[in-house]
């Protein structure tokens, strides 16, 4: 007997046997499922007030966390925003805004970011006018804002920067 004849014989034998047992395996999967014991009912979630509160808190935290993460991973402080004053001073330990805007009280600035930029946001309701200001670096070192458009000389011939508000188009803050 040749090899291909043997192969043909085997195939025919398998088909014949399978047809002979067709009836026995027809509903096998249904019979197996029916034979399984009943499962307990699925867990039912009934939102209670504490659960709702927890979910709401989690949502708020996620929202705020997103903002924080966005701010951290962003390119840096929004120095192009006219409502933001910036100073590049990588080696400073602290920088404060001091001026007519703050009634000459020290207002700590945010920073530094990874580029050494310190920044502070101006109040949204800032009245139009001229405001003299400067930056106090490390508690005692007076620094003017190089981005200002006007400057005035004051005590000890130190320089105050002048903020003209609202800025005309194209002006740095």
């Amino acid at each position, binding site marked *: 007997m040749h090899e291909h004849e043997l192969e043909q014989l085997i195939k025919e034998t398998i088909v014949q046997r399978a047809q002979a047992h067709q009836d026995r395996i027809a509903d096998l999967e249904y019979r197996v499922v029916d034979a399984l014991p009943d499962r307990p009912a699925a867990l039912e979630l009934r939102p209670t007030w504490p659960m709702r509160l927890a979910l709401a808190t989690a949502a708020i935290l996620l929202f705020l966390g997103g903002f924080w993460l966005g701010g951290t991973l962003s390119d840096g402080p929004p120095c192009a925003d006219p409502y933001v004053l910036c100073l590049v001073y990588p080696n400073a330990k602290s920088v404060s805004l001091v001026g007519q805007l703050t009634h000459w009280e020290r207002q700590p600035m945010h920073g530094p970011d990874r580029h050494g930029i310190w920044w502070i946001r101006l109040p949204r309701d800032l009245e139009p006018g001229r405001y003299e200001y400067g930056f106090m670096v490390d508690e005692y070192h007076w620094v003017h804002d190089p981005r200002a458009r006007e400057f005035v*000389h004051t*005590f000890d011939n130190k320089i105050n920067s002048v903020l003209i508000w609202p800025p005309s188009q194209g002006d740095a803050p």
Partner: protein
Amino acid sequence: MKYLLISVLTALLLSANVLALRGQQVTPQDVYSCFRALNVSDLPFLINAYDKGFKDRRITPSMALTLCQRLAQSAAPIGLREGVLRVIGLALIEELPVTMLVDKALEGLAKGVALEAINDELAQRKATLSEVKALFAHKGIRISLTIRFGAVTLELTLEAVDAAITEAARALEDYVRAGQRIEDATAIKATVQRYLASNRAIPVTLVSFIEQIVSAPEWAQLAQNVANRLKK
């Protein structure tokens, strides 16, 4: 019932907050208490001067108290600290605007400038304010007077006149201190006009009126006076 109780409690808390805020409003008595605590030598003069300032609305109790409290934090001798209050008191008696003086005093204290230097600066600026006020008065710019400019009639308020005096004096001081040319009368006048225009408390009509009636040489003369005082 539960909601009603919560509403009532919230309302009570809000009322308490409003009352607390009212209680925090600064009064002249708070200012005088601060003067007393400083142990000033001439308390009656200061009370008299600042009382006039409060009544004339040239200074608020809040401004005066801030100044007094910042002076209290200074370690300088009391005579020097009192000097600051005294210069501003004199300006109030002379019916000069004092916002620039208070501002400069706060600036100096914030920067840690020696009180002698602050007092000198205040005295110089007070003299400039005085000269600008005299010039304006000579030109008919006085509180409660009415000016006519073209078709427009404008009654001069204390706020407008004081703001104009302050801005003009500030412009002259800044111009001279920046080391710019005293001989350039046109530039001096332009600087003054720019400062006047930047202050919203000064009506546009008044800015135009001043431009019309005060000449460049008159401003230059005042700038020269500022320079002379700085040389001393």
